């Protein structure tokens, strides 16, 4: 269930859009801020608040990588962009470096549940490629060394 605070925020968000369905993305983001992912109950609550069908919320949640419809196992969710700009500038090497550093494959989680690694399509930061997103933070102009330092900093 969503807290009253989130529901109030959704009411505020609703007012910014011509129809409630357009508010779905922002409302879902608000819902996700509560615990870092959205559950079935959350999606139903967002649908209820926006007077749309739950499946319409799931459509949005399932389409964009920024929503975690399933809870990532690790405390930190590392998403490496592998779209055109990032790939041209060596995203492949970055992914390989992370896999080696953590000893896991893409899509897996470290044994201590510290980090979940996944890849993403364009995250909209082509000017600073290659890049990755850890939880809500962007890490840009990556090099193999820089990545190693960042990963070590994750507790």
């Amino acid at each position, binding site marked *: 269930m969503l807290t009253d605070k989130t529901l109030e925020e959704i009411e505020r968000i609703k007012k910014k859009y011509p129809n409630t369905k357009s508010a779905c993305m922002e409302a879902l983001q608000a819902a996700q801020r509560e615990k870092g992912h959205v559950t*079935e109950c959350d*999606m139903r609550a967002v649908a209820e608040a926006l007077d749309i*069908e*739950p*499946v*319409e919320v*799931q*459509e949005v949640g*399932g*389409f964009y990588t920024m929503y975690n419809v399933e809870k990532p196992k690790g405390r930190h969710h590392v998403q490496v962009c592998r779209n055109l700009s990032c790939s041209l500038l060596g995203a492949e090497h970055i992914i390989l470096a992370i896999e080696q550093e953590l000893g896991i494959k893409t899509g897996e989680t470290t044994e201590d549940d510290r980090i979940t690694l996944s890849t993403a399509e364009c995250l909209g930061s082509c000017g600073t490629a290659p890049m990755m997103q850890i939880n809500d933070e962007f890490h840009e102009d990556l090099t193999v060394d820089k990545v190693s330092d960042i990963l070590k900093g994750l507790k």
Partner: protein
Amino acid sequence: MVTLKVNGKEISVADGTLILDAAKEAGFVIPTFCYQAELSSLGSCRMCIIEIGGQKKLQPACITPVLQDMEISTETEQVEDARASMLEFLLSNHALDCPVCDKAGECELQDMVHKHGPRKGRFAEMRETFHVKDYPLSPVIVKNSNRCVQCMRCVRVCKEVVGRGVLGTIGRGAHQEETSFLKGELDCDHCGMCIEVCPVGCFMRRPYRYKSRPWDLNSTKTVCQYCATGCITKIEERDGEVIRSIASKDTEGFNGRMLCSRGRFGHDFLNNEERLTTPLLRVNGTLEPVSWDKALDVIKDKLKKSQPDRVGAVASARLTNEELYMLQKVMREGVGSSNVDASSRWSAGDSEAFIAATAIDGAGLSIDNCMEADTIFVVGSHISDENPVTDYMVRYLSASRRKTVMVASVRPMKLDRSAQITARHMPGRLGAFLAGVTLKLYEENKTKLSGVKGVKSLDGLSIDKLSKASGVAPGDIEAIAKKLSSSQSVSIMAGTDMIRLGDGTGGLCLLSDILKTLDKRVFVLPLLDRSNQRGAWDMGAHPNFGPGYSELKGDTGLDCGAMLEKASKGEMDLLYVIGDDILAMYPDRAFAEGAIEKVGFLVVQDIFLSDTGKVADLVLPGASFVEKTGTVTNQEGRVQPIKPLRKPLGKAREDLNIIADIGSMISKNGSFTGDITAETVMEDIKKDVPMYGDVECDEQGCRGFLIGGVARRSLKCISVGEEDTTELKENKKYPYYLVTGNHLFGSGTLTGSSSMLRKLIKEPTIEMCIEEAKSSGLTDGDMVTVESDGGNGKYRLQTRKKSSSKVVFIAENFNEGSVNRLYKIGERVPRVSVNKGA
């Protein structure tokens, strides 16, 4: 107009026509997947790509409009190659399990690959596997996503046509799956439109699963009998068992592929083992099988001993035109009585007022024409439940043609979401609400409207008073009046609540007169709930007028209510009931039971042993609509043929023959003897009912579809002054107003005998406003006892949003817990109490 060339052939089409349609007009069919005429354009499957002269890249025909002097080629080598490539691409992720797929044989992908290739696929990647086993989405729908071609027709049809939107596209790219929320069971209309539009075997019917191949089915193209929308449907059977009903591309009805849950899944009642197959006569208190000769002899004997005015007939408005015409003829010319009615629910006066208000006695009007008006105003109808396919048409046509929809109703319904203005009025106060709208229009155009007949009856009324009486805010009344006043043309769709509650016909008459005087084009379309209700009235199966609404030579007869009243005094010698269940339907069950018991001799002709049949003296087995020939007239006035799929069961006979036989026994001048068939009766109808003069029916269907011309007599409208414009008074003991109507999944004996529909609605329910339920300590799913002055019953509670707080709804057709036990004779809106516990 735009002139262009398709494969060298020159044609002219309207501006904005899609290349796909232009090519079709020129005689070239372009293959499509994601395109569906009723739906918004998507252009995602790329199956329809064609070559346009001067353009290097191929273009999708289903989203590209024509331009002047375009040169289009649809059958070049390049186009054929591209089609084969698109199919190769689609097949790269397709399960290719045709041998076990229900769709095989009528699969669009199969047909397309057969026609356009490729013979070999080159993709080496693994197929996407969404799941191993098929999963159910509802009691009637089962899903296999591995066969999906991602055309999204299911998602669009659910949203744009059905208006539910419970299907979505989850994920993206090759991982995209069209399914329900978290693949759970759907809480929807269960209409199966997703199954119908699915080009492959991704959505399937559960009842039809692994049952048959399409080429093994015998079928008949006929008219669905569940409501007066009159959808053309194909009923299919194998080895004597009715297996499915389907509206496909090739059924060519005005409904296209649209059917509702009742129409698509509700025809298994035809296989029900409880169908009547032999005449039954009451001997020493029990019904025992007898021969037809014996049964008819008994009727002859009883009729001889009866006085004409003590004989009556009540027929179902689901019989064919021919049968109803014959019945009223037998009653009027044979028996010599006008005691003939085609509804046990409504009084003759109320139905006559409705006929006058909606001009049913005039010419027919198609829904499509109605939807050409600027504004569509739906009143007195729960169209989403009673006429689901009409509701679909209003929804998608108003969206694609950008029309305004306004709804005024007692209960909330699905169409509200597609409406720009929604007004919720109190039950029995539609008249007051319409008077408010007319008053507003009148106040603004007094000089122009002062000559309109009946406008004087508005004197003494005020918007304020009418707003209070109807429960609609003055602002809403004004908004609706404003919208009507700014429209060039208005369509008013008027439903059965106006007859059920005897309410609003005066307001409707005056409103349409006023709008006409204001130089607007006004269309009025009746929305009816029995398949041949309009036909029944056209045929004169009504105590107050004869065929074609002609004036009766003798006295008017008694309607069903009056016949029961007479019976209760012991003055009815014989009552002949065909296909109607008076005990289940007459709005006062206790009274009906008492009256029926006192009928001298009760003859019930039906396909099931109804409650009324159980107390009859003689029961005659009739034929269902797939076992007889004839025509029915839908609410639009469209005459459509029904054609037999098989012979009547056992000793059962076609109803027309039974009625004619009874006629021939009592006729004095031999007018009912000889070869009487649906065709010969139709010839009589054409002579007797002027509107049907042009109707021509043959193997292909009926032409001169919409009945035309003007009836001989125009019925009189009631005036607004006669409408009830007082405020409803509170009742402490029984705080709720009970309203009734058809349920989406049930409309009486037929739906009750369908095992599929019984899965969708398991027990009688009562609908209540969610806030009201909360404040009374009730929650969705509770068992509640409903009590009124007339009686009580137990129902399962369903809460509804946006409902009027004091109004509760129980469908009128539950077999057990029938709502008529809560009614008292003459009471339109019973007051009830709702309490927790059984």
